[in-house]
């Protein structure tokens, strides 16, 4: 029983944030070890430490039973650690061989690349590990599953004995997941060790030999799939406490702000991203949308806002048919939108805050008067937002890019709630935001609900969903699989539902 990796007592602090604290992980050689945990549990920081991109404040690392310090990715590679990133680093317009070989090219006569040697080495890897890729294929022609295999081959080419895979199945469809797992088994059969980061419990139970659960920056359990089940895993991940559901002081009204009837959506390449969605939101109600990222939430929001027309079925947002009305008309009719990517979709980074107040509301009063912008009103109202939402900035003239992420988010929330919109779409509204700001934002969302706004709360934060939602819809692979009542559902059940399982 030899250990490939042993992490003991790893600590890593950032100003104001404890990223890793007392982390212990042991991985046996030849095993697939999964590390699971919610967003923000500290998994990515830990992997950055293991790959030399970040230095731990304290703790020890042993690789193949030798204590080591890893100061840079080069060190990590030298120790046989290879990282397969979640976002692939490939050049489309080059072949598989070229992508793999770059940076570690075998040479001939000092300037010429020995492609023959590289090809032979790659073929060996392909054969040994059954990777089924063709060195001469153009990466642009390859699907996601194949690209991932190229990334895996990349690290194997450099002699990796330990592979770290960061959320590898996030972008794969079921068949591709199966193929990946087959490959992983071959790798371990050949003596390699694999670390597999995920929060997809069913996959982890299927493939891992051992599991570490992380929560709030520390390891809380080390388990073996044979001796546990998903329910227990979910419990460890979330902490098992039931957040106290709010007493419902008002009931949702009869009026509906969103009616989605049997709507499906295809993307530009013809792939179906949403399938037969049925969704309704009433005024004065918060509908939480739970689901692991990448299951269709973005497409759903675009469809509701009118950016994309449904391929079949219908969508009526605040009474307007999205097949007929434009995004502009829908927004002007009373829809607020807190985007998931605030810097790209929610702010003009190079503009002062008061101008950002206008964004999204530029064609209605009070921000504009006919064809003219009302600068005075914009400034006045941005001051109000700064005050009410505790946005930390010396003035409303500061450029949006100068603010911290949390303060940017508070401003956006404040802006989108002004004018008492009929409907509010909030996508990950408190992501990357400190606890204090989170509380403020939550308070305001609840207040909007009281005033009669219908809220679509899209979130990967189960805590948030439970605290705020009247109902929770679960989205999985582009379709709504379940509707749950937060008062009678446990977080573990919700976690399970998010993996596609129907719960009783």
């Amino acid at each position, binding site marked *: 029983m030899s250990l490939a990796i042993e992490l003991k007592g790893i600590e890593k602090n950032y100003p104001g944030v404890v990223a890793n604290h007392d982390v212990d992980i042991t991985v046996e050689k030849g095993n697939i070890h999964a590390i699971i945990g919610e967003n923000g549990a500290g998994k990515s920081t830990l992997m950055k430490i293991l790959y030399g991109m970040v230095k731990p404040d304290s703790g020890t690392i042993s690789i193949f039973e030798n204590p080591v310090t890893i100061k840079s990715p080069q060190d990590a590679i030298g120790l046989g650690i290879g990282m397969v990133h979640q976002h692939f680093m490939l050049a489309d317009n080059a072949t598989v061989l070229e992508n793999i070989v770059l940076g570690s090219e075998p040479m001939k006569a000092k300037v010429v690349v020995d492609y023959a040697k590289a090809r032979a080495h790659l073929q060996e890897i392909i054969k040994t590990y059954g990777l089924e890729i063709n060195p001469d294929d153009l990466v642009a022609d390859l699907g996601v599953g194949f690209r991932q295999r190229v990334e895996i081959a990349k690290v194997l080419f450099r002699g990796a004995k330990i592979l770290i895979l960061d959320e590898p199945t996030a972008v794969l469809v079921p068949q591709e997941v199966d193929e990946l797992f087959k490959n992983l088994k071959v790798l371990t059969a050949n003596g390699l060790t694999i670390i597999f980061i995920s929060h997809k419990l069913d996959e982890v139970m299927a493939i891992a030999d051992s599991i570490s659960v992380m929560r709030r920056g520390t390891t809380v359990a080390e388990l073996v799939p044979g001796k546990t089940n998903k329910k227990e895993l979910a419990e460890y991940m979330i902490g098992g406490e039931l957040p106290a559901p709010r007493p419902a002081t008002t009931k949702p009204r009869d009026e509906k702000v969103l009616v989605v009837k049997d709507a499906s959506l295809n993307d530009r390449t013809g792939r179906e991203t949403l399938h037969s969605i049925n969704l309704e939101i009433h005024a004065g109600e918060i509908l939480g949308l739970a689901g692991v990222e990448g299951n269709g939430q973005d497409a759903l929001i675009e469809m509701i806002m009118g950016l994309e027309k449904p391929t079949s079925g219908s969508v009526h947002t605040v009474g307007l048919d999205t097949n007929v009305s434009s995004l502009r008309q829908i927004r002007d009719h009373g829809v607020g939108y807190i985007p998931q990517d605030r810097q790209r979709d929610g702010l003009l980074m190079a503009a002062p805050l008061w101008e950002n107040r206008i964004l*999204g509301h*530029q064609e209605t009063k009070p921000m504009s008067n006919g064809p003219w912008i009302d600068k005075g009103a914009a400034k006045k109202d941005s001051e109000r937002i700064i005050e009410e939402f*505790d946005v930390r900035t010396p003035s409303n003239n500061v450029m949006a890019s100068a603010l911290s992420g949390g303060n940017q988010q508070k401003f956006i929330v404040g802006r989108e709630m002004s004018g008492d919109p009929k409907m509010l779409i909030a996508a990950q509204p408190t992501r990357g935001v400190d606890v204090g700001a989170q509380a403020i934002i939550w308070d305001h969302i609840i207040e909007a609900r009281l005033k009669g706004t219908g809220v679509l709360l899209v979130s990967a934060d189960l805590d948030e969903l439970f605290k705020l939602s009247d109902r929770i819809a679960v989205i999985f692979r582009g379709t709504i699989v379940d509707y749950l009542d937060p008062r009678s559902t446990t977080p573990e059940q919700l976690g399970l539902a998010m993996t596609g399982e129907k719960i009783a």
Partner: protein
Amino acid sequence: MKKLNKLFWALAAPVAAILFTLIFVSIILLIKGANPLSTFQLIASYGSQSDNIVAELNQTVAYYLAGVAAAIGFKMLLFNIGIDGQYRLAIFIAAVVGGATHLPSYLEVPLIIFTGMVVGALWASISGYLKVKRNISEVISNIMLNTIASGLITYLLQPSRLGLKGKSSDNLSTPMIPNSGWMPTFHIFGGELYSFGIVAIIVGVLYWIVLNKSVFGFNLRATGMSFRAARASGVNAPRMVFITMAISGAIAGLTGMGELLSHTHTYSLAFPTGYALTGLALALLGRSNPIGIAVAAFFWSFLEQAAPALDLNGVPKEIVMMMQGTIILATVTAYEIVKRITRRQQQRLVGAADASRVEAGQKGDK
């Protein structure tokens, strides 16, 4: 205090750039054996001579319009190098239309101006379309279009087609525009100042008002700042890009109008061929601000007017061209540096505001 600080940094870049250019040029002059100080003096005095001032002002008007055209493009992150072709085609066809029609003054002049704007807008919208639909760099497509425009004009200016033979065989021009299509001049400083300058001023004012005060202008600037954020806020972003290019072309079509309507009354190959580089440089120097562009335009014309004088005094007049190239590079570099400094400043201010609020015992922050 804050306003002063803002003003300082806004001027810092162009001032630094000009200083750098002056030093650089002085070095070159010294190598050549000329005296930098006396050279600059010469430029200053020659340029301020009264009969030259009018010529400079007339040229300023043309440069100004080119600068505004370029600035409009900049607001959308578009580099309208096509001003050359747009302007030439516009002025050519406007001259042809003017020469072919004999309407009363209050119709003829606006017709000519309108034609110029329309032609400029249409020619520019070719590259706008390619940019929006095929994501093709407007720089490359405009460079190609410029050459095509040149060729078309040379082809059409033949006597057998739209041109007229002048006194000598190389003097091809379009038919004369009738008197009703002439714009008056102001007799000042011993020279003739084109009245088209009034239109230029109106354009500048409109530019500033529309861009900064109107919803349309807001949408335009927003799309330039963040295509995605503008789209999410309801703006038809691709259409905005297209429209901006067309507007830029329309203004480019106005650049030669002063000369055409008040001076030559006909188009010939003697017309200046390139305003694009100058327009872009002026927009950069003037930071796309209507007053800044005006100042830069005057400065530019001033230099150019003085160039022949340099020649007569043994200083190569090409020094002016080198100055211009250097100013562009120095300015853009200076702006880049200033941008980074001010951003860091702002972040520090925000950090301080954050901290001070915590100290004042406001809602807890981690």
